């Protein structure tokens, strides 16, 4: 590791050093002041929604791109006028400071605050103990939401990881068409959940029996002799039609990551097991799977976390009606439809508690990699 050493520059004559020094101090004081004023002005300007959108846009981009840089340059400059000894011990904090401030303000403080609010009532005025958690974990509506989240977690994660694994093994064997096939399966990952929801709402679209079906699923189903179904109101199967969307989105992601890992399995290892007469299935379970274990764990936890927080798909497709509610959508409704901030906070804490094992796992593997 480097310790920052002060610059070893030859010392200029005393008078010009003094002049340069005072000029430097002057600049160091004026520039921050100007920067601060500009940022403040921009801040107020952007709150002022009367300004034309294009003007806001221009200021926005200047601030977004330039403002942050200016802030760093100015504080670094400010630190440079400090005496040598203090300077180099302060400087690292100029670099990490903004990140730490924002993380504290946007992640750490709100998290603690939400935990606190989860023990207060709907308007956050009176202490209600565990009432919000009683609601979150035992009320009838929430039991449905919790059940659905469990369904999502099991089926989406299960399908995404196993489908992704199987497809990545298969595309590995089709030669030059591999990249094209991968692109097709991977593409949904670039699509927003809102876009994906519209796509699938169309697939699930339902028309009365005498009219032509325009949704793919009902067209196939009626062609096979069935009556058209309103898939999204078909309890409890509608949950599976919703979670299928997420499987569609995430499978390509699992496939791409796992495929990269499988390609990393040394060819000699595979060849050696083949010469030993191991069957392909044994090679898959005995060589490939153990080799990519780390990637499998990462993919599984990643998908679990994404699924746990699922919001957009449910919000757009059914908004939790017909027993398709999930925790994150319920939380949004508690905030904006019911104005119950106690319930909303408790639901957020439930999500947080669910990801804590992953947090611990991440920190542990970081510490292991340091050794």
């Amino acid at each position, binding site marked *: 590791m*480097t310790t*920052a*050493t002060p610059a070893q520059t030859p010392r200029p004559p005393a008078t010009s050093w003094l002049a340069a020094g005072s000029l430097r101090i002057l600049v160091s004081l004026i520039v921050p002041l100007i920067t601060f004023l500009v940022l403040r002005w921009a801040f107020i300007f*952007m*709150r002022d929604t009367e300004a034309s*959108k294009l003007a806001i846009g221009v200021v*926005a*981009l200047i*601030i*977004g*791109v330039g403002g942050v*840089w200016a802030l*760093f340059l100015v504080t*670094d400059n400010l630190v440079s006028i400090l005496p040598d000894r203090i300077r180099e*011990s302060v*400087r690292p904090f100029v670099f990490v400071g*903004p*990140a730490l401030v924002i*993380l504290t303000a946007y*992640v*750490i403080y*709100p*998290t603690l605050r939400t935990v606190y*609010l989860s023990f207060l009532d709907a308007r956050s005025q009176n202490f209600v103990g565990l009432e919000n958690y009683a609601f979150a974990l035992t009320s009838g509506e929430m039991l449905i939401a919790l059940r659905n989240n469990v369904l999502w977690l099991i089926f989406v994660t299960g399908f995404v990881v196993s489908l992704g694994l199987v497809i990545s093994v*298969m595309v590995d*064997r*089709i030669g030059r068409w591999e990249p094209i096939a991968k692109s*097709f399966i991977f*593409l949904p*990952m*670039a*699509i*927003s*959940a*809102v*876009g994906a929801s519209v*796509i699938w*709402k*169309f*697939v699930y679209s339902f028309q009365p029996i005498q009219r*032509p079906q325009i949704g793919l699923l009902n*067209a196939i189903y009626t062609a096979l002799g069935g009556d058209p179904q309103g898939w999204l109101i078909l309890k409890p199967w509608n949950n599976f039609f919703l979670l299928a969307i997420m499987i569609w989105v995430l499978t*390509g992601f699992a496939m*791409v*990551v796992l495929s990269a890992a499988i390609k990393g399995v040394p060819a000699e290892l595979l060849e050696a097991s083949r010469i030993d*007469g191991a069957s392909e299935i044994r090679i898959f379970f005995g060589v490939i799977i153990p080799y990519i274990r780390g990637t499998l764990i990462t993919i599984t*936890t990643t998908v679990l976390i*994404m699924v*746990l*927080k699922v*919001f957009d798909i449910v919000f*757009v497709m059914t908004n939790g009606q017909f027993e398709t509610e999930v925790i994150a959508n319920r*939380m*949004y409704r508690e905030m904006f439809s019911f104005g119950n901030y106690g319930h909303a906070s408790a639901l957020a804490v439930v*999500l*947080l508690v669910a990801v804590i094992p992953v*947090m611990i796992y*991440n920190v542990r593997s970081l*510490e292991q990699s*340091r050794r």
Partner: protein
Amino acid sequence: MSVGLQTPGSIANDRLRKFLSGIPVRVTVVLISIVWTLPSAGLLISSLRPANDITASGWWTVFSHPFEASIWTVENYVQVLTAHGLAGAILNSVLVTVPSVVIPITIAAFAAYAFAWLEFPGRKTLFTIVVGLMVVPLQMALVPLLRIYTQIDLNGTFLGLWLFHTGFGLPLAVFLLYGYISTLPGEIIESAHVDGAAPLTTFSRLVLPLSVPVIASFAIFQFLWVWNDLLAALVFLGTREDVVVLTARVAALVGRRGEQWHVLTAGAFVNMAIPVLIFFSLQRYFVRGLTAGSVKG
């Protein structure tokens, strides 16, 4: 191929191997690719059909006479961009997205450099905390921040949403950039110090240019995250015409115009166009960003 003794097992095994590399695998892969593409294809084709046709017949019927000009139209796109305000929403999405990508990258790059190459007390502990914060669900911040924003009039402003995306993009950004910056060759950075370069110079002239690949990966990841985000945009910007972003606008169309498929299909495609374009042009970086950065709050 194994050239050992042909035991019954190895014969069966050879057969299996041939089977796996043969036609059935190709057919299966083609089938899966088709199944995965059909829903999007249906959306794209429908968005180019006249409104009445969409509800009168399935989109697949266009293949019976695909070259008749009368079955295609761009009217749906004209309509969503003008009458339904998607043109304005595109601008809003850009205004939200660009700073929400640039600000966290800048702040994270400075921090990652300090974590990797500068000595200061608490360095390891602070970095561990940053890694721990990576998976905090963004739901944890919604209620308190919404309240604070209402008090200081930041609600419904772009600035508020940028800072939010910065906050929740930072842990991952710092982690990714640290992983890359800490593996830069130490001799280069130390020789810069010996030559008398200040940390800021080393950072901006040396570290930053060398880190372009990882910055590109994170930028694409964050771009998609912010562009496709609905929840934070709904909470902190809302659905007012002058600030509403594309995802929120399209989501509103679904709610209000449940069966107006010509509007919905075109709207959804407008929302998808830019990410899909980026996907095709920068797939390599995109994959790397996703691989490295999938665990996020």
